[in-house]
């Protein structure tokens, strides 16, 4: 009997390092890198007699993360000790959460090849990071405890994921939300987002359905390695099933490491070799009561999430899905666009300007939108001034760069131009006549009722004047001349 179907089943465990000022259980600064062992204290070095204490920011950021993933926040939560010995774990146990996590039962919607899929989230719990082992050579190893005790949220998905692409989209979705709400940088290279995946197959053969042994693949540090590891594991388990026919019931779960260079997963531990973590309640920390008022206070801080925002941008502002995506890559860019769009008569034009001009400047100058000197209201005014013909595109670009370089507002720049603008009626009338003579077709269009034609002609007049013409006066003269032609 042959295999009729082999369905891939994947669940993800994502570790997100939280952006708190201090570490999870001591007052040491929580920051990436630095000279080894310069951000340590008796508590995070596990000196004899030292005790942990809970950083309230760890609790609040975890609650915010859980709410963003549609989780329920526990009214009573506690910490537990996960016992295992390793040089980068100075206490010989990790303070984690076992049976009473801070958040449970949420979901994240992801988009894969045009359709939306909801991935269930079992739990989000708080724990502390380990230090880093540095192997100098075969004989010498050192440990850097700067990262030791950094706060982590571990997010465990349901086994709802059915492909490598879905897994990658899920982790990207987690990253997007966590960044958007400002709880983590989720930088995979720096390790502030780490991912383990649990993979197996449900094989259908005739009336029989079999589950292959679950492989937990650790240390996936890029989206490419997540996709490659799952795809590799799918093939490997199928081959193994065909050859050995070992089921989950027989072999349980195994731990495998992903070798990115060779593109293979390597067996690290079988079920028999798995460590027994001997969880028990952390006696040094009191259980924490989370009031509903506390949860609601944090819920009020939850910003509009990127998916919701994108849908609104598409619906209210008529943006394309692509444009909405670009403008929601960070919460600050999204907020910037949102503010500009609210003030602009043509939000789509504002969207274009921000994507090409503003993001361009951010890229070349290597700054964030928060450091960008031009307020979004001025982008709205600038875009609208082009729309109304007050400025041509090239004039607008000139104003834009002057706003950046001079730190002057749009209004201030326009006002300085007013002082030098040409209010000489005869000169303007001459420019108007030249434009009308040069564009008979557009004039004909105007006569047939195309009101936009007047706007375009106005733009030409302004252009001819090099932007110096008094726009009001020019508009009045153009209007008079056109009426006369009617």
């Amino acid at each position, binding site marked *: 009997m042959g295999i009729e179907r082999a369905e891939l089943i994947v669940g993800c465990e994502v570790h997100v390092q939280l952006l708190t000022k201090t570490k999870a259980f001591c007052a040491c600064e929580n920051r990436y890198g630095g000279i080894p062992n310069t951000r340590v204290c*008796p508590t995070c*070095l*596990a*000196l*004899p*007699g*030292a*005790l*942990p*204490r*809970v950083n309230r920011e760890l609790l609040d950021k975890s609650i915010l993360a859980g709410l963003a993933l549609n989780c329920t926040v526990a009214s009573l939560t506690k910490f537990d*000790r996960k*016992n295992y*010995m390793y*040089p980068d774990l*100075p*206490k*010989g*146990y990790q303070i984690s959460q076992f049976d009473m996590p801070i958040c449970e039962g949420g979901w994240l919607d992801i988009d894969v090849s045009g359709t939306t899929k909801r991935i269930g989230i079992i739990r989000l719990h708080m724990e502390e990071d380990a230090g880093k082992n540095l192997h100098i050579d075969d004989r010498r190893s050192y*440990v850097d405890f700067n990262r030791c005790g950094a706060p982590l949220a571990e997010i465990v998905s349901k086994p709802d994921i059915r492909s490598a692409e879905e897994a990658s989209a899920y982790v990207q979705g987690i990253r997007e939300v966590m960044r958007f709400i400002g709880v983590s940088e989720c930088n995979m290279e720096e390790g502030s987002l780490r991912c383990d995946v649990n993979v197996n197959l449900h094989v259908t053969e005739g009336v029989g359905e079999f589950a292959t042994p679950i492989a937990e693949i650790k240390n996936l540090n890029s989206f490419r390695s997540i996709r490659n590891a799952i795809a590799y594991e799918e093939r490997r388990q199928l081959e193994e099933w065909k050859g050995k026919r070992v089921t989950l019931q027989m072999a349980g779960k195994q731990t495998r490491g992903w070798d990115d260079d060779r593109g293979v997963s390597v067996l690290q531990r079988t079920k028999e070799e798995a460590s*027994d973590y*001997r*969880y*028990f309640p952390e*006696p*040094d*920390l*009191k259980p924490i009561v989370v009031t509903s008022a506390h949860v609601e206070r944090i819920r009020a801080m939850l910003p509009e999430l990127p998916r919701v925002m994108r849908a609104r941008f598409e619906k209210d502002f008529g943006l394309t899905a692509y444009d909405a995506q670009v403008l929601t890559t960070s919460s600050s860019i999204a907020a910037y666009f949102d503010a500009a769009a609210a003030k602009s008569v043509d939000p789509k034009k504002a969207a274009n300007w921000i994507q090409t001009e503003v993001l361009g400047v951010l890229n070349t100058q290597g700054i964030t939108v928060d450091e960008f000197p031009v307020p979004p209201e001025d982008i709205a005014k600038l875009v609208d001034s082009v729309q109304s013909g007050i400025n041509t595109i090239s004039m607008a670009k000139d104003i834009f760069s002057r706003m950046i370089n001079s730190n002057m507002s749009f209004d201030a720049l326009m006002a300085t131009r007013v002082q030098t603008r040409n209010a000489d009626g005869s000169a303007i009338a001459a420019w108007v006549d030249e434009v009308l003579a040069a564009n008979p077709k557009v004039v004909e269009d105007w006569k047939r009722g195309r009101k936009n034609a007047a706007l375009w002609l106005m733009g030409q007049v302004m252009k001819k004047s090099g932007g110096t013409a008094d726009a009001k006066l020019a508009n009045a003269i153009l209007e008079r001349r056109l009426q006369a032609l009617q």
Partner: protein
Amino acid sequence: MMDATKLPVVEILSLIDDGKLSSEELVKAYRAALEGDRASAKPLNAYVEFFDDAGDLARAADARRKAGERLPLLGVPFAVKDNISIAGRALTCASDILEGYTSPYSATVIERLVAAGAIPVGRTNMDEFAMGSSCEYSRYGATRNPFDRDRTPGGSSGGSAVAVAAGMAAFSLGSETGGSVRLPASFCGLYGLKPSYGRLSRYGLVAFGSSLDQIGICARTAGDAALILSVAAGRDDHDETSADAPVPGARLEALPRGLAGLRVAVPGEFSGIGTDPEVASAFERVISLFEKAGAAVERISFPLLKSCIALYYIIAPAEASSNLARFDGIRYGARVDGGKGLFSLYSVTRDRGFGPEVKRRIVVGNFVLSSGYVDAYYKKALAVRTLLVRELTGLFGRFDLLLSPTSPTPAFRIGEKVDDPVAMYLSDLCTTFANLAGVPALSIPAGATKSGLPIGVQIAGKLFSEPLLLGTAAALRGEGL
């Protein structure tokens, strides 16, 4: 010059105030007592280190006093169990595994006592990592009982009790996980206070059973214990489990009613099989003192007390197995590289570094937490502990005090129980309930056997009732105890 070495803290302070004694003289006298003892045939072995600079510190305290400074304990020398951190001092927990370790920080309790002017003069011997009831399981060898040098002083804070009893300190700090201050206090004729869980910060006390541990006080009088407690107690941000309860006053407020009207419960579970007849009669005498003074003593049955030893020897080792995982030879202390990679470094370091009782408890602790057994042992013990707390809370609604002998026997012989762990564990029969329930308990000297071995009785009360316990002890003294 008078012999000041056996004086209580309160008297020392008034002599110093009157200019009749200096802190420096006192430290010199303690050191002389220690040196005299070291030269004897069977040294007590109370201290593992008497600080070389103790005299300098005392002189500095004298100078501060001369300059007009007034602090509650200025110039009072005290001894510290070798599992409480003092900045710049070695800390070994009487274990080889901490060989060479110096603490860079001080325990909160040490900081508070030092801020009040007290002077830590030395580190005292103990059972390794406070695991033991006889002060025999130590890298420094056994501590002897000053009342009979062939007997143990009780443990695990044996050195701390002996330092005070033998006139080598004004008071001492020990630690309690299951009677480790009360038992040696009773064997050495002292007051031994196990404060309520949370009363004293645990920050800087090397953890054994974190949910049971408390720093305890060995003192010559109840008044001394009250004074020291008032200085050391109070909420500490370094210890989340420290309590926000009001700190008891330094002076013993007289009991509102004296002993009259006190409701005292005597559980039958602690007397009976195995109780030494001389302990039993000393205990009966205390009961009659209470009754004579107008207290209502009632003999009750509290069956759950019988389970306490079992609960204790599940919960304490479970927490210890985790607390002692940090002694891995990586960051501090002794390291013995087995030469075969990380696992051999761990196993050889810990095999050489830990003594037999510590290993026994780590193994037991890992077992009761391991998958397949955690429900039957650890979780069941936690459930029974919850029940104990509830029943004891009920009991302390009906009674002010629970009265029992501190130990069923006076001090036992060195070597008598060291190879029989279960017999050793039974020394803690009457004491562990207080640690399991978190309530305060005080061992009070109550006479001696014919051969001169001290006997102690214990009173326990509801959470944060230390003033009642200490006041009762003082009142009993007034009644002739």
